[in-house]
């Protein structure tokens, strides 16, 4: 038998039918659902008179546009001030009830960002195929699952057939060798990768992340890396299963138990690329050379070290890149040649499916403990990824550390990562954000996003500008 990559193995195990033209029918084990990309799919089912193929493969939670203030949340759905958001959240509840789908509703303590909640509940398991109408579904690849985002037509397709029509992607290996410096995190790794290969570098590929530095990461850190595979153009990111993965899953509510657990864990430990498996492309990075990263532009590939400078378009020889840099700097209100450390910040956002897990919050809390948010910062907020992350953080006293330092402690949700709810970055304001996209208008109309790690965002909150966390 020839050697296979991890991607090959999961793909082959889920192949229902292969057509001559290369299109395949792939079985989907888990379908994650949220309120924004599902209503039209459920409506489609109703119009066609169809039922879900297997209701118990689906798992739902509202996250994108629910409010994060306690005042709004404590009043339940009636507390959602935005009437259009309210309809969407209510529609998800109604659809899940009608089609008998498990939902962690808005004020269930298990509710949160779907990509935080899935792994937390054990609804994400190694070797699964997982889809969701959200591009950051790639997050779940950190547990050795083949996971990617789909559009609403495919949401309806998976609901109705438990399958996806797909063409196999190519295999890419991104190997991060050696060890990270203290203060450099999973977020810096993935931003450095995107900086190196570009936002289209992974288009058409499934990326497997490997190497010493990836193996050394916690499972949560691995989720941060896989989360942003899509920002490198790859629909799916993957990491081999090891004992850390198994330990992470054990005992979670929907993970198998007893004798079934033993059998599953044994099977999952086989989920790694074979020795000598062929990759269509291999990228190597030296972990020790990665510095804390900060984006300066309107694409995640527009990234440099915290000790770097905003590029000057005059120095770019490629015309289309020069145009892109110029357009970005105009939007960002930055001059070429500005030191990253000289950018004045107005806002801090710690949260999102990239960085809102307990370890992220611990890292941020460690940095702000005993300090105060700089007076020039208008808004600094911490939004935990789920109700259970929030609870755990409160048990550890992290909420008090944040509040004493002057950061707001919010209820779980996607919040200012995409600003579909009331949490919006103001026009022209610069935000140090632990989220995943710095597109124009992403965090609010006219808002200017700088993507960073939780420790870097926390340090920026205290200083009002970027500082190198390694020097603290």
């Amino acid at each position, binding site marked *: 038998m020839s050697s296979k990559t991890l991607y090959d193995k999961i793909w082959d195990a889920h192949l229902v039918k292969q057509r001559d033209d290369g299109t395949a029918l792939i079985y989907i084990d888990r379908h994650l659902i949220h309120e924004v990309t599902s209503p039209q799919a459920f409506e489609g089912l109703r119009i066609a008179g169809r039922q879900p193929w297997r209701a118990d493969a689906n798992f739902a939670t509202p996250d994108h546009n629910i409010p994060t203030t306690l005042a709004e949340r404590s009043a339940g759905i009636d507390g959602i001030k935005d009437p259009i958001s309210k309809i969407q959240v209510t529609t998800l509840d109604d659809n899940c009830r009608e089609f008998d789908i498990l939902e962690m509703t808005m004020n269930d303590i298990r509710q949160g960002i779907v990509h935080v909640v899935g792994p937390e509940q054990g609804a994400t398991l190694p070797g699964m195929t997982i889809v969701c109408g959200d591009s950051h579904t790639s997050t779940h690849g950190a547990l050795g699952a083949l996971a990617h985002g789909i559009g609403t037509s495919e949401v309806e397709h998976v609901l109705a057939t438990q399958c996806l029509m797909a063409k196999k992607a190519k295999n890419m290996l991104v190997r991060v060798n050696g060890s990270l410096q203290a203060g450099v995190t999973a977020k810096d790794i993935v931003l450095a990768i995107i900086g190196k290969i570009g936002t289209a570098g992974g288009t058409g590929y499934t990326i497997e992340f490997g190497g010493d530095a990836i193996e050394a990461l916690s499972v949560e850190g691995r989720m941060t890396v896989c989360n942003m595979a899509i920002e490198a*153009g790859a629909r799916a990111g993957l990491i081999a299963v090891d004992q850390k993965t198994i330990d992470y899953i054990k005992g979670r509510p929907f993970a198998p138990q007893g004798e079934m657990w033993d059998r599953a864990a044994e099977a999952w430990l086989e989920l790694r690329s074979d020795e000598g498996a062929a990759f269509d492309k291999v990228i190597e990075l030296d972990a020790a050379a990665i510095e804390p990263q900060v984006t300066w532009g309107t694409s995640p590939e527009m990234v440099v070290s915290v000790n770097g400078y905003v590029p000057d378009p005059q120095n770019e020889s490629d015309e289309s890149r020069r145009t892109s840099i110029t357009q970005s700097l105009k939007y960002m209100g930055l001059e070429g040649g500005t030191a990253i450390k000289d950018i004045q910040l107005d806002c801090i956002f710690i949260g999102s499916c990239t960085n809102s897990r307990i370890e992220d919050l611990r890292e941020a809390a460690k940095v702000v403990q005993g300090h105060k948010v700089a007076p020039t910062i208008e808004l600094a907020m911490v939004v935990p990824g789920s109700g259970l992350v929030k609870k755990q953080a409160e048990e550890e006293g992290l909420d008090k550390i944040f509040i004493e330092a002057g950061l707001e402690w919010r209820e779980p949700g996607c919040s200012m990562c995409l600003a579909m709810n009331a949490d919006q970055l103001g026009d022209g304001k610069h935000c140090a954000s632990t989220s995943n996209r710095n597109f124009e208008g992403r965090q609010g109309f006219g808002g200017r996003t700088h993507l960073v790690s939780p420790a870097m965002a926390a340090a920026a909150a205290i200083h009002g500008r970027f500082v190198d966390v390694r020097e603290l």
Partner: protein
Amino acid sequence: MKKFTNESGLVLPLDRANVDTDFIIPKQFLKSIKRTGFGPNLFDEHRYLDKGEPDADNSTRPLNPDFVMNQPRYAGARILLARENFGCGSSREHAPWALDDYGFRAILAPSFADIFFNNCFKNGLLPIVLDKAVIDALFVEVESTPGYELEIDLEAQEVRKPNGEAIPFEVDQFRKHCLLNGLDDIGLTLEDSAAITAFETTWRDKSPWYFTLSN
């Protein structure tokens, strides 16, 4: 699904690389629970000078005179000419819905983001990949020729210029078949119900731990 066979129309040149899905349709419009009505908010943050809201009357909003789509010569465009990595970012199908609702039938670019590319085909919208040099030349011709139209013949897999020159393009044969016939994917897949059931039975036996979620 809407059929795509032969389409002709005015070409709108959008000279910008890495156009993301937030650029195509900003997030506030994703609160809708419908598939239609997104056209007036296509490219909203560049098309208008003010911030768009889902319930606003778009006809009274100030247009951005510097945005190419607002030039009268491109009114009614049906073919979008774009740059590399078009449609990057989120999986929101609202992006192709907005393009379709505005009236676009095809997009020509040197490359597309995967999820967006896939979503287009589900909505009768044809994304066509052409060499960068061909796209570059089209930008020059479109911008210098008012009323420039292209014809797209999916059956023949050709983009035809006004001078009759034909540019061949590649398309996945299964997707082509679905577009030409306006076929619904779900109906097609359900023809394989027996194969899905057989797979599921074997899979459940082999990996029962994937079937433990209960409501």
